[in-house]
């Protein structure tokens, strides 16, 4: 089976995010009021072939933790969707 994976990587809560903070500071100048707690991150998408959803999830999670995110400062969130064959 094939699965579409999307991995979102963000800095862990508590780790300073200078990018998010800078974006947040720029918002009032553009007229956006009442927007808070901006956090920047990155998103990755890829397709995984695996016998079932559980093993696709294991593979994608390992990939995210070993490469896409640095677990020392970042956390990742995985979304998986089966692709029609």
């Amino acid at each position: 089976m094939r699965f579409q994976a999307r991995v979102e990587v963000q800095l862990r809560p508590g780790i300073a995010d200078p990018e998010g903070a800078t974006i947040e500071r720029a918002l009032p100048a553009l007229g956006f009021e009442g927007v808070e707690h901006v956090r920047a991150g990155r998103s990755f998408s890829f397709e995984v072939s695996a016998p079932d959803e559980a093993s696709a999830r294991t593979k994608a999670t390992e990939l995210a933790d070993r490469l896409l995110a640095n677990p020392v400062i970042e956390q990742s969130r995985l979304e998986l969707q089966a692709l029609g064959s």
Partner: protein
Amino acid sequence: MPPRIGVVVFPGSNCEYDVVQAADWLGAEGELLWHGASSVGSVDAVVLPGGFAHGDYLRPGALARFSPIMDAVTSFAQQGGPVVGICNGFQVLTEAGLLPGALQKNNQLRFLCQPTLVRVTSTTSVLTGLANEGDELLIPINHFSGSYVCDDDTLHQLEDEGRVVLRYVDNPNGSVGDIAGIANEAGNVVGLMPHPERASHPLLGSEDGLVLLRSLLDVAGAAAAA
């Protein structure tokens, strides 16, 4: 036999020749090691130089860590061989797990390229053996992701074990504990953001990096003589 310093060249490294030149001025022999090699050969020390290994894609050091030579560098380090990562090299060492913590974007999101005063805070590492605790050295920094970050337990451990080897006198990037350089438990693996090779000749405006490079060559020389 002069000590041989292996300087790893990743695609995107750009300080390798500066390190080789500085080693040469100090009477050592610098040797470039391609990142695709599976061995570090018979060098007495390894330097991971500054630059943008693999374009710094994903995160600085994230892809360099998987370069073939990193297995050899890791075994060299595990056998006690001196390994120093400068700037991007420091980022590679943390990504590879040879040093704890991580290097984050500078807190003001500015690329910093300036002479910076750092204080020697431990002399038990291969990079600071000939320095004195409290020495203040003027050495350039040149980085965007140089803000050292680690959890509180790691920070306490680094401080209690004397593994913070250099601290900024005036913290330029938001590093926890003003950390500019750290060592592993054994002191043979060191990472630092400042560039000692860029403070190695009067023409460069400072020679303060020499004491660090001499310390490394001293350890490498002892290995070469053994």
